[in-house]
């Protein structure tokens, strides 16, 4: 019997305009958007504002809970950690000096850090809107329809299929451990941090081994049903004119922002 749901789908069911849009278009637009955000010149804040506008419209139109979008967008935070050294390594007008180290921050460095943060945050939010309004299966079909190499699509689809299986397996291991994590009256429990870390490390290792062994079994089962290394998918559906028009307009808008930011 399955016990509990370790984590939920990225997809948030809904019936908004964004939800019902062709998954292929959404995927293309999201990629185009990320591309545009990445290409925008450093420190061009007005251009970033113009780029943020359609994203705000998309979030509003998708009727996703804003809090959910913001919470998931915390995924962009690690990029900041990577970007922070730029603050001190870029040459330019001095802003302040971090005393014990004698590191000097520059205005150019600050602009670079903020730009990286803005770019990564906008890109992450675009990806969130895409994954929260498109069921994973639709997204995979869209990838296939857009001629993403089959082996890549197959890899992603297996990842999606077994992510939940492995997460459940991990949850059961943790559950077994917690079941035997007991306390006796008048005795300190829990062992040393090192011992507990060792136990956890072994659990991670055994999870990897099991996943690896499972992959061999799955592969054998696929071969038994005639898998020859080429996954096959059913083809589907036509493009809808209105959606294509919207998409083209959107791409033109983003191109316009890029042109404006440069000249």
């Amino acid at each position, binding site marked *: 019997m399955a016990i509990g*749901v370790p984590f939920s789908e990225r997809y948030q069911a809904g019936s908004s305009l964004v939800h019902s849009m062709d998954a292929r278009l959404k995927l293309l637009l999201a990629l185009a958007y990320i591309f545009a955000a990445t290409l925008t010149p450093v420190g061009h804040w007005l251009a970033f504002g113009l780029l943020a506008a359609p994203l705000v419209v998309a979030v509003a139109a998708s009727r996703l809970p804003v809090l959910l979008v913001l919470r998931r967008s915390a995924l962009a935070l690690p990029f900041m950690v990577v970007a922070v050294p730029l603050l001190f390594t870029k040459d330019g007008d001095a802003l302040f000096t971090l005393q014990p180290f004698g590191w000097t921050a520059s205005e150019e460095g600050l602009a670079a850090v903020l730009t990286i943060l803005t770019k990564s945050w906008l890109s992450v939010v675009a990806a969130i809107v895409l994954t929260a309004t498109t069921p994973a299966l639709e997204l995979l079909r869209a990838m296939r329809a857009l001629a993403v190499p089959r082996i890549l699509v197959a890899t992603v689809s297996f990842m999606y299929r077994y992510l939940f299986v492995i997460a459940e397996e991990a949850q059961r291991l943790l559950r077994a451990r917690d079941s035997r994590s007991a306390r*006796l009256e008048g005795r300190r429990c829990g062992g040393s941090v090192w011992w507990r870390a060792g136990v956890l490390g072994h659990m991670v290792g055994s999870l990897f081994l099991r996943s690896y062994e499972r992959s061999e079994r799955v592969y054998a089962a696929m071969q038994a049903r005639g898998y020859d290394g080429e996954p096959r998918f059913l083809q589907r559906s036509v493009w809808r004119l209105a959606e294509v028009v919207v998409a083209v307009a959107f791409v033109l808008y983003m191109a316009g922002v890029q042109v404006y930011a440069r000249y």
Partner: protein
Amino acid sequence: MRATKVRAAVDTAIGIANLRFAYPDGVQALRGVDLTIAAGEKVALLGPNGAGKTTLLLHLNGTLRGKGDIRIVGQTLRDGSLKHIRAQVGLVFENPDDQLFSPTVFDDVAFGPLYMGLPKEEVLARVRLALAQVGMVGFEERLPHHLSLGQKKRIAIATVLSMSPAILALDEPFSSLDPSACRELMRLLQALPQTMIVSTHHIPIIRHLFPRTVVMDGGRVVADGDTEAILADTDLLEAHGLDVP
């Protein structure tokens, strides 16, 4: 509910009152379970798939937390008593691969006592005793995932015996075992002194090992009483999709 026996509250091992639980996906797995098991009793838990047997067992040591009242050996289960109760209830999962998470048999059997902070000699003694009880002495350095299913199931029981619990809660310990492994496990369970609640579908085993049977269906206890009386109630067993002996 039929044939419920009234038991003295003094030496109650497990006392459950109006236990309700719904999984996060909305499935109502327990719909008000009442169950009292006296110390030293050996009880079989019978019921079709999805009846709520596993869910109930997972509540006995607080792995799942539903609404209602659970008392284990006189202690009410709540946040503060969770770890004390886990020393009392040895819960063995259906799939031993979930139960055994350490690189060697020794590490797995020693996990509970080590976590409880027992001194080294005591840990070694407990591991030795637990492995002797399940007849697996000499397997200390073996890798759990390379053992046979019957061996894994016995090691899984050893991992909780080493904690010297008052209660054993076993989820389908006999599933997928061959007849000889079944017989060995039966002998083992018969020899153990703990209070036991064991879910299983094997009628001959129930008859042989458990004087009392609890039948669950749809998240409720639908019958509870003398094993022979319940196994003789063909209508009851058929109504809940169970094997008629």
